[in-house]
Structures are given as C-alpha cells and as structure tokens.
C-alpha cells in the first residue's frame, strides 16, 4: 500500500507541476521565429529576439556554416592586420547563453501559405514570423567568362571564408613586379568602400613584399565611396602603384579569361598575374526562391519594421534589401536587425514597439594607422529609409586623428562582433 501511495503522490506532483507551467512557457505553444542566415543581420535579430523576449519566443537560426567569417575586416586580414581566426565567429554563445536553436543546413524553400521553411535534407521548420537575412548572391557571367569555377582561380572574396584565404594567397604569392588586376563591382553591391579598402590593403602588402608590383582597378563605375580619401591615401602611401580606370576610359569589361589571366575591355587587354573579380550582386538566393525580390533582384521592405512588402509574416534584413538611403553593410544589417527584432517581438508578445532608428558607419583602413570613416543616420519615412544627416573623414587630417579613427574601428569590430554573436 505504502509503495502505491508513493507512486500516487509522485504522479500527482508531476501532474500538478506540469499544469503549473504557464501556457506561454510551454515550448509547443510558444510563438516561433525562424531566421535564415547567421550573419550581421540574422544573428543579431535572433539574439535580440531571444534575449529581450526572455524565453517567451522560440528562436531557430538556420545557417549552413559552423562558423561565420565576417566580410567586414576581411580586407585587414588580407593586409596582414588581422588573423583569419579573429574575424571568424561560432554560434556557441547564441546557443548556450541565449537558447537559440541553430540548425546548420541550407534553407532551400519557403512555403509562405503553410508558414514553413524547407531545408536541404527535405525536412521543414514551421514559423509564425520568418526573418530572411541571406546576404548576397553573385551574378555569374555578369563579366563574360567569370563563372563559379573561374572564381577558384581569380577569387571574388566577396563572401568571406575560403575565398578570402585564396585571395590572400594569390596576393602574397604573386610574382615579383607582377600586375594585380581588380575588377570592381557595379552598383548596387555589398560594402561600397570595400573594394577600395581592399586595394589599399593589397598595396600595403606589395609595398613590403613586392614593391615593384602594380595594381590596376577596372571599375564599371565612374566614381566610388570615399574616392578622394582613397586616392589621396594611395598617392601618399603607395605612389605610382595603383591605377584606377573608370568605365568612361576602359569602355566596359568584355571578358575575363582565367586560363590566360587576361581581362579584355573596349580600350585594351589587361594581362594579370593575379586578379580579384567582384561580380554584380543580387539578394541571397533564398530571397528570390521565396518570392521576396522584385525586378531589381533585391527585396522591397516596409521602412519602419523591415517587413517584406511581399508577405506580412516575413521580414528581410541587410544586403538583400532595398533599404532606401542605407548602404549594404554589416553595420546597416545589425542596425536593421534591432528595428526588426523590436517589431517582431511586438507582433508576437505585445511588447512595446518603439519608433525605428537606423544608423551606419563604414570605417576603412588605407595604411598602417591611417583610418577613415563615413557614416549617416536614418529614419523610416513612409516611402523609404531616409538619411537624416551624416559625416565623412576629410583629406589632409592629421596622423593622430587617422590613428584614432583606426583604433575606433578596432573597438567597433569588437563591439559589433559581440552584438551579433554574443559575448
């Protein structure tokens, strides 16, 4: 008798405590947020939703890679200022501290009617709200001859990881006195000052290891971000090494041949000993597959919340979006993610939704301790995210200020890395 009474007691206790769990804490009943893409936009959104909802929202992050190498500061790795490890981050803090379920798979489809995401292994994940932050996809053949296979010889290195390491090995190993050719991307593209910071970092390597080397930049554009600052910096630090040729001079990129290293333009054929080809870009593939893009290849959004204009249960962040005046940058994606997280929490748990504020700053390194920056703040106007003011470094600033700007960028990297991936 006593035994069965004990069993009875235990059973009662279990039943009671199970009933005592508030409805919203039971996993099966919690609202579900699924985030596609574990970069500056997606990981930040996942972290803020998990952190600020204090367990009331079930957050799943879908990201194929075990660790994420940031595109921002990857030029500093090429220049020898950072290690590869220092720009690579895993998801352990998001899983451990914030209780986010991280699924290392590629998302292959979205069923917006059923509200599920399909994964590469055929399984599916249900959502109440979906956040899509897949970065960019590269438009192969935007320069004829430049294919995915070709990028194994002439890297694009515009999605960080093995491509970045490959490019660094090409720069470090280029023959003495050789010619390095960069084909810069057409607008719109990820990280407007990025190609030109990269030129600076490659020039920094050549100045030390290969001082007779030349760098030719074939640009499909007529002007670029922080142009005056970069060109003054190249003149100061790397005189005679860098030649930038805009479309009006070269007349257009006709073909890229990885076998011969030749890049043909209307003007001339440029023979490269190593090359970096950065093709035209569009939203990450899943955004198009899910029907979130328009004819620009990017995703229109509602400025105050980052909600997709194609579906009220879907939000889009970062490089994949048409974000009005905001550039495509890690900082922008991180900024947008916080606005989105606030909106999504408000929708799902009724938490207070505050007005959207956005900002961005892009720091670039031209040479050792020679940092420059450009930034702006933004607000959500009904038609688009609109700049409300900004600043840019000036040519002729003194060395102390440039050093302080570089040190500020190092601090920013440490801050944003913790803000994205958790501290």
């Amino acid at each position: 008798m006593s035994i069965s009474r004990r069993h009875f007691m235990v059973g009662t206790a279990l039943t009671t405590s199970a009933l005592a769990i508030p409805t919203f804490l039971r996993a099966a009943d919690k609202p579900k947020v699924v985030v596609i893409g574990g970069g500056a936009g997606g990981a930040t959104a996942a972290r803020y939703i998990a952190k600020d909802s204090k367990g009331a929202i079930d957050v799943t992050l879908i990201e194929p890679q075990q660790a994420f190498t940031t595109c921002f500061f990857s030029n500093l790795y090429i220049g020898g200022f950072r290690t590869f490890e220092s720009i690579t981050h895993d998801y352990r803090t998001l899983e451990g501290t914030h209780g986010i379920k991280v699924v290392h798979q590629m998302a292959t489809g979205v069923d917006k009617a059923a509200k599920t995401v399909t994964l590469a292994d055929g399984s599916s994940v249900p959502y109440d709200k979906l956040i899509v932050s897949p970065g960019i996809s590269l438009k192969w053949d935007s320069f004829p001859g430049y294919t995915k296979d070709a990028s194994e010889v002439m890297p694009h290195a515009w999605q960080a990881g093995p491509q970045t390491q490959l490019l660094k090995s090409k720069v470090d190993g280029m023959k003495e006195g050789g010619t390095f050719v960069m084909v810069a991307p057409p607008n719109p593209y990820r990280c407007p000052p990025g190609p030109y910071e990269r030129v600076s970092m490659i020039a920094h390597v050549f100045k030390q290891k290969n001082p007779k080397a030349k760098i030719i930049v074939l640009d499909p554009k007529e002007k670029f971000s922080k142009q005056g600052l970069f060109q003054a910096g190249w003149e100061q630090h790397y005189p005679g090494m860098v030649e930038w040729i805009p479309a009006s001079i070269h007349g257009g990129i006709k073909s890229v041949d990885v076998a011969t290293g030749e890049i043909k333009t209307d003007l001339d054929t440029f023979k490269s000993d190593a090359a970096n080809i950065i093709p035209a870009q569009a939203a990450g593939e899943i955004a198009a597959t899910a029907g979130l893009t328009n004819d620009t290849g990017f995703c229109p959004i509602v400025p105050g919340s980052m909600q997709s204009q194609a579906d009220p249960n879907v939000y889009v962040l970062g490089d994949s979006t048409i974000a009005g005046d905001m550039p495509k940058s890690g900082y922008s994606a991180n900024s947008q993610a916080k606005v989105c997280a606030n909106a999504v929490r408000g929708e799902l748990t009724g938490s207070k939704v505050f007005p959207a504020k956005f900002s961005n700053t892009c720091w670039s390194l031209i040479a050792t301790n020679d940092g420059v920056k450009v930034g702006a703040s933004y607000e959500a106007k009904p038609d688009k995210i609109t700049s409300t003011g900004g600043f840019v470094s000036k040519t002729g600033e003194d060395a102390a200020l440039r050093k302080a700007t570089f040190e500020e960028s190092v601090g920013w990297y440490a801050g944003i890395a913790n803000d994205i991936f958790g501290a």
Partner: protein
Amino acid sequence: MICSRRNALIFSCVLIAFGLPAGFSTDAHSQTTQASEALSEQHKLLVTRGTEVFQRCTACHRIGPDAENRIGPHLNNLIGRTAGSIAGARYSDAMKKAGQDGLKWDANTLDAFVADPTSFIEDTTMGLDGVEDAEDRKALIAYLSAFATGSSNIPETPAARGLPSADPGIPAEILAIKGDPEYGEYLSSECLTCHQSSGSNRGIPGIVGWPVEDFVVVMHAYKSRKRDNPVMQMMASQLGNDEIAALAAYFQQKGQ
C-alpha cells in the same frame, strides 16, 4: 613679488581650467599660492602640465577636497593606495584581483598602468586609451601626487571637479528629465554596436554605469558639437532630450 604674481597667475589658470564653482574659497586659493612658492619652477611647470593631462581623466575621476567616487574612484591619496580598495567605488573584477594580488599605486605602477591600461590590467574597465608621452605621464603623476597627504613639499591643490558637467549651456529642466530605462534599453541597442555591453573599453570607451548627469551632459555636448567625434555627434543628433535621459537612466541602472 613678480614671482609670486606669476604663481598666482598659473594657479588662476588652473582654477579656470577646472571650472570651479563661483563660490570657491579664495582662502584656499591664497594658501595654494603661498605654498606653491616653495616649489621649484620646474616642478610647478610639471604640475601645471599634469593638470592638463588630467583633463582626460575627469570624465570619470574626481580629485581634491570634495572629491567623491564617480564612474571611477576618487583619486585623493592615490599614491600608496592598494588597487581596487576604495569602499563604495566601482571596480572591474580584474582591478580588485590586482589589489588582492598586492598591486599598490606608486609612480612606477601608475606610469605603467596609465601608459597602456589594458596591457597592464587586461580587463580593466578604465576607458583611457593610454597616455603615450612619457613626460605627460610624469606630469600626471606629479599632479596626482599633489593630492596625497604624505607629500609634504606639494601643496594641496583645489578640487578638480565638474569638468564635463560644467556646461552652463544645459538648462536645469533638461538635467531634471527622468528617463525611462525601458525605452533606454531599446535605444541602447544602437550604442552597443560599438560600445561593449560589459562596460569594458576596447578602443571605444565603456559607458555602462555612468552617473545620469554625466551621461546627459556628455551626450548634449556631442549634440551641440562641443565634443568632436563625428560618429557620436551623429548619434546624439538623432536623440531628443527624453531619449538622452532614457539612455542615461538605462546605462546607469545597467552598471548597478
């Protein structure tokens, strides 16, 4: 007489630099002047230079007769003090541990710490980049030493206080706004893109645990462009008075 007038002038400048309240005792002023005559000319110049270097510290530290702990501990009697030992002051765990391990502040340890704070104590939350110039450090230490009871040949110099707070351009009603920390928490996400949420300084100053008034004054100084970092000017320009108050309330609370 000429000499003493010069001394008086030097110390007047110091007083002006520190923005002392109008009612500050002139007795202390004249005592200071007299005592300072005993100093060698060289040392006086050094201390004067030290007062300028100390400006970099005043966002967080107070020194002098009425000095209290602010973001960092007060710095009276710093020479000979065990690191992390002032009751009621906020210290990083790293600083407290350094003190427990026997770190005492003297000219040598201060010199090393101030030269490169995070090299000396890796996880210090002191938001100073480091004073690179050795002569500046020497001057700073001479200045700090002037506030130690044990230094008989150095006069007690008036309190260095209220530097960042001494902005008369901020009306009392703005300082009196009571911020909403919940709104501040939301707004803070913009700050945390660069500033470490732990409060540590890694190239960008830590801002966790600042007293509300200091935070408000500093943000308004960026907003009115009296402080010159363009990123901060941009951030502050986006914020209304209530929002600055909300952030101040949140960051102070976060430090407790």
